[in-house]
């Protein structure tokens, strides 16, 4: 029973630490993944950004470092509208989601060339294939970078 409890303790600790950064999705031709980081004034959110480019839509999910789906969305290629399907609790407020929808759409414009109007509020920079989109009005920075393969070391 002691071992049982000990394992219980470990597993509960894993609740917070089962990062998906070490994961890979089952490969399909239209699925892409990269690291993401959303930096806000009062904190940041990071993890893996996975997208699936369908015929009529782009599906996207942001999985945070806790292994939890933080944001998922559907971008309709015909209507050019984006719908947030799931937003983690602390971001699940209408005024935050409104900004997120606009920002994610602009990020898709940069990453996948979906249509969007030029907006002076957004500052875009690219370096070595990594992309940074900053909403200067809201002071939110979205960074997308390659995932490091396992042939490196983390320590």
């Amino acid at each position, binding site marked *: 029973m002691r071992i049982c409890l*000990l394992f219980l303790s470990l597993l509960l600790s*894993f609740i917070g630490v089962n990062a998906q*950064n070490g994961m890979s999705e089952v490969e399909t031709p239209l699925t892409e993944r990269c690291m993401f980081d959303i930096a806000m004034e009062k904190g940041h959110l990071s993890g893996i950004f996975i997208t*699936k480019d369908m015929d009529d839509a782009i599906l996207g999910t942001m999985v945070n470092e806790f292994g939890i789906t933080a944001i*998922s969305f559907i971008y309709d290629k015909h209507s050019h509208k984006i719908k947030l399907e799931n937003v983690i609790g602390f971001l699940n407020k209408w005024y935050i989601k409104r900004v997120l929808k606009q920002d994610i759409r602009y990020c898709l414009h940069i990453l996948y060339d979906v249509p969007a109007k030029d907006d002076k509020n957004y500052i875009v920079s690219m370096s070595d294939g990594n992309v940074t989109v900053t909403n200067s009005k809201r002071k939110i920075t979205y960074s997308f970078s390659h995932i490091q393969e396992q042939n*490196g070391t983390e320590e």
Partner: protein
Amino acid sequence: MSCSFVQTKHISLLSDKMVSEGNMYYSQPGKLRWEYTSPYKYLFIFNGTKVYVGNNSKKDVIDTNTNKVFKEVARIMMNTVTGKALSNTSDFTVNVEDAQTSWLITLVPKKKELKQMFAKIEMFFNKNNNMISELNIVEKNKDKTNIKFSDISTNKTLNANLFAIP
């Protein structure tokens, strides 16, 4: 204590899944190393009030005294080390079921912070040795993370460097 694991996250929206493998090490009191080895390296170390999170390109050391989320994780961890998680029901509603060859323990979070992340956590313990064999973390949006454990080793001395914060 140490073991290997295979972790599979099912993403409902994408009808897809992500699979990773790694190792876990634990030493009392309160030292934990959770490392992914495939397909990408990623590492977590809990040691006292410090939490290390890192890979090749990004490394963070978080002080649980200044980070509410990590402090909560550490607190729950310590409560379960001492068994308080089962007796102190402020964090989870605990249910135990007979699942043929396993005991199934279901934890349903009570607190708002945990509810925002999980619908429930299911743990399967082998009846023969009381060892954990499998874990499911079910999210509100029906996404699910399954972790299967193997090569479990207990009561062996682990190198202290495993838990050193880089």
